[in-house]
């Protein structure tokens, strides 16, 4: 499995931010098999980084690697959607549907 490089932007230590961080930790451990590198950036401390990455909404998760680059906006409460955003198949059945639609 490829290694995931992820950056999570949050604004301050709000409940929403904390929820997003916790959700991301859980998904990384459960679904990425520990193959990940993760940064959490608070835009209040590093606004220039947010500017460079053109972050508008928070929380925003950026998947830098493996390509393609993806942004996932929100507190990551829906695991299936997050995995879809990370180009991972959430379930076996779901993968089947994707394969079918591709052929």
């Amino acid at each position, binding site marked *: 499995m490829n290694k995931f490089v992820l950056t999570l932007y949050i*604004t301050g230590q709000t409940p929403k931010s904390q929820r997003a961080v916790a959700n991301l930790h859980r998904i990384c451990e459960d679904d990425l098999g520990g193959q990940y590198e993760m940064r959490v950036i608070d835009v209040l401390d590093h606004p220039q980084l947010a500017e460079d990455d053109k972050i508008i909404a928070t929380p925003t998760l950026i998947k830098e690697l493996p390509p393609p680059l993806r942004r*996932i906006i929100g507190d990551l409460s829906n695991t299936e959607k997050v995995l879809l955003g990370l180009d991972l198949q959430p379930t076996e059945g779901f993968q089947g549907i994707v394969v079918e639609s591709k052929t």
Partner: protein
Amino acid sequence: MNERVADISKIPTGIEGFDFLASGGLPVGRTTLVSGTAGSAKTVFAVQFLAEGIRKFDQPGVFLTFEETPGDIRLNMASLGWDIAAFEKAGKWLFVDAAPQPGEESVVTGTYDLGALLARIEHAVTRISAQRVAVDSLGAIFTQFADANLVRGELFRIGSALKQMGVTAVMTAERTEEYGEISRYGVEEFVTDNVIILRNVLESQKRRRTMEILKFRGTLHHKGEYPFTVMPGEGIIAIPLAAIQLKQKSSYVRISSGTTELDRMCGGGFFRDSIILVSGATGCGKTLLTTEFIGGGATQGERCLLFAFEESRDQLFRNASGWGKDFAAMEDAGLLQVISVYPETASLEDHLISMKSAIQTFKPNRVAVDSLSALERVSTSKGFREFVIGLTSFIKHQEVGGMFTATTPGLMGGESVTEAHISTITDSIILLRYVEMFGEMRCGLTVLKMRGSMHDKEIREFTIDGHGMHIHQPFRNVTGILSGQPRHVTRDEVERMGGMFQED
């Protein structure tokens, strides 16, 4: 009321004409919504607000874009004369780029807010100590995020944060109709203090741009729609026509019309700062009268400026030499400038602005426009009237004499549309008419009106030769010249009519 007005100070935008309409500029430390349909120059307004702030007042500005990329804006605005890249290099301009990223998909899961955007704006404002912020355009952020209510709430938060930062901001928003609700997505609900509407109305196949200050809470401004134009190298120029005050000075000094006999008919010449309208059918001597007017000025060492909208420079010079006037020599002596353009090359607003700047540069004593009717072709009647008012009042403020010509549609008489629009604005009206007499066309001239002076009321015959215009005796035994139906009366009848009004 007066105290309250004094409470809210204004910041001049630097947009020509607008600051006058806004009685000083935009309210300091507040947000102003600039709303308009597609192509109504909203982005230009937003960019100009920042650019002029930097150029004229050395106030740094932050530009938040939701729609075009900074690269596109730099490129598009270069043609209007603003070098944004140079402003950026000087640390006076900062972009906050919130334009949609092409080819990048984003997934939304769970709740979010626009806290990052707010943090970036605050960061940018602090970094260059910005005093001005422009946001372009609010509608585009609604297309990036599905949850309109959330976006509205967040924009409200950004609006109040801007207020707390003490910056003066301009936000643009889209409208779907020229005369309908203020903006799409109801964004005016959170920037309620000040609203400006830019319009780009299609009227009789011609585009007409206007701006209206809908509200400026707690402060004064001029009401109603005012035309504006976007000029290359200048940006938006508003034309505060209806707000012009009638306070020009008026002079008793007479100037020569160039023809001694006409001077006599006018009681000694035209007043120095008066506007004279010359009306007549095609070919009956309007350009000649203009040429005489210029010749009369030049012989007294006055500077004359001629705007020609019907004939080319060469044609005018040839005509003038046929009437014994040497335009080339006058030009060499620096007494004459001829500007010859086709009316169709620009909109009327643009013509007005370039004419004003030509007058300011050349500083003439006399201005002639030949002919106004040609300009009427390129505008709506309302636009034309505003143009004439704008031009007349500008000329009068410069305290120079002006001569305008207007062409009547019929050969024999009647009045032109131009005349109907502007006759009350002009100080003097001279009518030129064809008179048919015994199978021959002759030319007649009369001074119909002359404000503030006695004048000859007769209709006189005039002839044209290699020395110009010669005015002769009145048409004694013809009636109905002005109505276009000349009728001969016998000498007996003239005497009888005269006798009827004589007191014994």
